[in-house]
C-alpha cells in the first residue's frame, strides 16, 4: 500500500478550498501535529516497554497495578510530571538553562521526522537524507552540554563533559556504519535505500561487512543515546543524575523522553539501513512465502523490526555493567573506528567486485 495516495488526496482536498500559501501552511501544521503526536505516542510505548522488558530480565513483573497489567502507568507519570514544579536556579545561565531541554527534544524530533514508516509515509525525504539525519541527530549533544554548563552544578558539568567526549567520538562510528550501507545502496535518499531492499535486506545483501557494520552500529548507537553500558553522562552511581541533576518537572521530562526517543530513532535507522525498513522479508525463490509477506503492511514491518532492535538494545542495556570514560574512548578509537574503516573498505571492495547478493 502506498501512503502517498492518501497524502495526495489530502493535499488535493485542501487545494480545492484554500489558496496556495494557506495550503502549505496548513499542511506544515498538520504534519507537525502528526509528528509530535506520533513522537509522544512512541515515547509512551517505549517507556512502558522499557519498564516491562527490564522487569522481565530482572525476574520481576514490572508495573502491574495502574490500569490492567500496568498499562496506564506511563500516563500517570506524564500527568504528574506536567504539574510538577519547575525550579529555576540562582546564579545559573537562565536562558541556556531553560533552552537546553528544548534543544535536546528538537534534535530528536527533527531526526524522527526523517524516518520512513511506510511507502510514502515519511515527512522529510530528499536526496541527502542520511546526511541530514546525522546532522540533525548530532546537535542533541549541544543541548546536553548546555544543560551541564548552565546548571551551575559541578556534577552536571562533569556529566556534560563526559557526554560531549563520548557522543562526538561515537558519532564517527555511527557515520562510518551508515556510510558502509550508503556504499552498498548507492544512494543517500532514505526512501531509495528502502526501495532497493525490496529484493533482499541489506544485512543479507551485504553479508559479512553488513553484519559487522550492524554490530558496530548497535554499539555506537547505544553510546550515542547515552544508555548503559555507556550511560556515563548520567551515571547514577557516580554523578547522581549527571547533566540533568538540576532539572525538575517537565524540563526533566523532556530529557527523559528524548533519551527514550533517541533509542527509538537509533533502532528505526538500524532497521531502515540494515533490515529493510518497511520492506517485507524477501527470500529469492520462495515466491509463495514472499507473496504472504507482501500482504503484511509496510508499517507493521517497520515497527516490528524497530521494536525488535529496541528489544536487542534493552537486552544489552540490562546485562552489562558500565564502562569507564577512558575505556569508552579506547573502545571507540582503538577498536570500533579501525574496524569500521576496514569494514568500509571491505564493503567497497565487495560492491566494486560485485560480491553482493
Amino acid at each position, binding site marked *: 500500500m502506498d501512503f502517498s495516495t492518501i497524502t495526495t488526496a489530502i493535499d488535493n482536498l485542501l487545494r480545492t478550498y484554500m489558496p496556495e500559501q494557506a495550503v502549505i501552511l496548513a499542511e506544515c501544521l498538520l504534519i507537525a501535529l502528526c509528528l509530535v503526536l506520533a513522537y509522544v505516542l512512541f515515547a509512551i510505548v517505549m517507556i512502558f516497554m522499557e519498564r516491562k522488558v527490564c522487569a522481565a530480565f*530482572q525476574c*520481576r513483573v514490572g508495573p502491574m497495578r495502574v490500569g490492567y497489567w500496568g498499562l496506564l502507568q506511563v500516563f500517570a507519570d506524564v500527568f504528574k510530571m506536567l504539574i510538577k514544579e519547575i525550579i529555576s536556579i540562582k546564579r545559573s545561565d537562565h536562558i541556556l538553562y531553560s533552552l537546553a531541554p528544548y534543544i535536546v527534544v528538537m534534535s530528536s524530533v527533527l531526526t524522527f521526522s526523517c524516518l520512513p514508516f511506510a511507502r510514502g509515509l515519511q515527512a522529510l525525504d530528499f536526496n541527502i537524507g542520511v546526511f541530514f539525519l546525522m546532522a540533525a541527530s548530532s546537535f542533541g549533544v549541544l543541548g546536553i552540554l548546555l544543560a551541564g554548563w548552565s546548571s551551575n552544578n559541578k556534577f552536571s558539568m562533569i556529566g556534560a563533559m563526559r557526554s560531549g567526549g563520548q557522543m562526538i567520538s561515537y558519532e564517527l562510528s555511527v557515520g562510518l556504519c551508515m556510510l558502509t550501507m550508503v556504499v552498498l545502496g548507492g544512494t543517500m535518499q532514505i526512501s531509495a535505500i528502502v526501495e532497493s531492499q525490496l529484493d533482499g535486506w541489506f544485512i543479507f545483501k551485504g553479508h559479512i561487512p553488513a553484519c559487522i557494520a550492524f554490530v558496530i552500529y548497535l554499539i555506537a548507537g547505544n553510546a550515542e543515546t547515552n544508555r548503559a*553500558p555507556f550511560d556515563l553522562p548520567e*551515571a*547514577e552511581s557516580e554523578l547522581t543524575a549527571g547533566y540533568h541533576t538540576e532539572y525538575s518537572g517537565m524540563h526533566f521530562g523532556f530529557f527523559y523522553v528524548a533519551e527514550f526517543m533517541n533509542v527509538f530513532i537509533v533502532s528505526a535507522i538500524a532497521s531502515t539501513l540494515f533490515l529493510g525498513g518497511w520492506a517485507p522479508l524477501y527470500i529469492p525463490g520462495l515466491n509463495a512465502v514472499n507473496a504472504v509477506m507482501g500482504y503484511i503492511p509496510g508499517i507493521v514491518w517497520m515497527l516490528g523490526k524497530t521494536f525488535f532492535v529496541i528489544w536487542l538494545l534493552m537486552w544489552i542495556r540490562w546485562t552489562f*555493567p*558500565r564502562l569507564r570514560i577512558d*575505556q569508552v574512548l579506547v573502545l571507540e578509537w582503538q577498536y570500533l573506528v579501525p574496524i569500521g574503516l576496514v569494514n568500509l573498505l571491505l564493503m567497497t571492495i565487495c560492491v566494486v567486485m560485485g560480491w553482493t547478493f
Partner: protein
Amino acid sequence: MDITFIDKKDVRTTLRKMREGGMDFLRELIGMDWGEEGLGVIYILENSCTHEVAHLAVRTTERQRPALPTVCDMWKIAELYEREVYDFYGIHFTGHPDMRRLFLRNDWEGFPLRKDYDASEAINPIRLTSEPPEDLQRSYEIEEDKEFAAIAKRENFMHFDEYVINIGPQHPATHGVLRFRLALAGEEIRKIDIHCGYIHRGIEKLCESKTYPQLLAFTDRLDYLSAHQNRHALCMCIEKAMGLEITPRAQYIRTIMDELQRIDSHLLMLSCAAMDLGALTAFIYGFRDREKVLDIFEEVTGGRLIQNYNIIGGVQADITAGWEVKVKDYCTYQLDKIKEFEDLFVKSIITKNRMTGVGVLTREEAISYGATGCTGRAAGWACDVRKRHPYALYGEVDFKEVLHTHGDSYDRVLMRIDEIKQAVHIIRQLIDNIPAGEYKQKTKPIIKLPEGRFSASVEGSRGEFGVFIESHGDKNPYRVKFRPMGLPLIASMHKILKGCKIADLITIGATLDYVIPDIDR
C-alpha cells in the same frame, strides 16, 4: 586481659621497639576516661605472623588540653584512630598532621565520651545550618616546659584554585552517608578528604548507661549486615567475663548463623558492587538470592535484617523443625546461583577491565592500615580471626582461608565468591550434626561483670569486629568500645584513591564494602 601502663615519655620508644619486633598490626586504639586517674589510650597490638597480642596503655592527668604523642607514623591507621580519640576525649596527639574532629561537627562543644560531658540540648542544639567549612589541618606539639598541647603548624587542605566536589553524604554510591571531598583534575582525583560521622549515633556513650542485656540491641545496628557476628562477639565477651560456658547446641546454631550471615552480607556486597558499576540486573539477581537467606533467618529468629538472636548464654529461641532441610536446600541453590552471577557479572570483560589493577593495596599497607577481612586477604594477609584466634566451632570445622595476591578490586570481589563457597562448606559440615540439648543457659535477671577489662573478637563479614569492655563491677559497663571493621578500610582509601578516576572511586568503594553505621557507631 592485662594491660601494661607505660609512661607518657616512653610511649614512642616502647611502641617503636614493639613495631620493629614484629607487632605490626595495631588492632585497636581505645580512648579512655578514667576520671581521677586521667585520660588515656589503650593500644592493642598484634603480631601479624605469630598472632601474639600485647596490651599497652598510657595516660595523662591533664584535662584542659591533654597531649599524648602520636603513633601515626608507625601504623597508618592510627591517623584516623587518633582523630577519633581527639573527637571523643579531646586528647591532642602531638606530631599528628591533621587534628580535626572525625565524627562530630566542627562547631560541636565538648567531648562527648568524657565522663563529665554535659549532653544538654542547650549546649549542642539541633543545628539546621550547614556545618562551617573546616579546611584547616592543625598539628600540635607540647608547649615548652609545660604539659599542654599547642598548635605547631596550620595548613590548608584544599586550595582556592582546585576543582573540588563533594561526593555524599547523600549519594547513591557511598553506601550510606559517607562524604568525600575530592579535588579533581579532569576526571582524576588529586586530593581526598573523608568526612565521617553523618550517622554517628554515640552508641559507645549510650552503652555506658545501659545494662548488659540492653547492650545487645546496639551491636545489630552497627554493621547491620553482620548483625549475628557482631552480637556473637559481644555475647562472647560478656560470657567470657562471667565465666559462662554455653551449650554445644547453641555453639552450633551460632556458628551456622554466622556463616549464613556472611553469605548474606557477601551477596549484598556483590550485588551492590554490580549496581555501582551500572549492572542493575546483576544487583537484582543478588538480592533475589539473598531473600532466601533472609527467609531462613526470619523463620528462626523473627527478623530479616536485624535478628536479635544471640543472647547472653545462648540464643533467643530454638531452631524450628525442618529448618535444617531448608538450609541444606539453600546451600545447593546458592552454589548454583553464584555461578550464574559469576557468568553475568564477575567474568564479564567490562567488570574485569573496571576492576583489575584498580585500588591496589599491598600486604604491608593492608597490615599498616589494619584493613582486615576480605580486603586484607585479597592482599595476601592471612588475617582471618577464625584461624588466628579460633572461637565458637571454627577450631573444629574444616575450611580454607582463601588468599589472593594482587590486592586489587577484582581480587576483593573474587574473595567474596570464594568465601561464600567456604561458608557453604562450613554450614554443610555442621547442619546435620547439631547436638541435642539446651539452646540457652539460664542467667540471673541482673547481670554484673566482675571488675576488669575484657575483649573478644570475631570475623565479621568485612573484617575483624572486636568488643572491648571495661567493667567496674556494676550492672553497667564503664566503657565499651567496638572495633569498627570499616574505619581501616576508609583510612586505606586515602592511599589507594590518589590518581584514580571518579569512576574508580565508586569501584573501590564498592569492593572495600564498608558499612557506614559501623564506622560511625
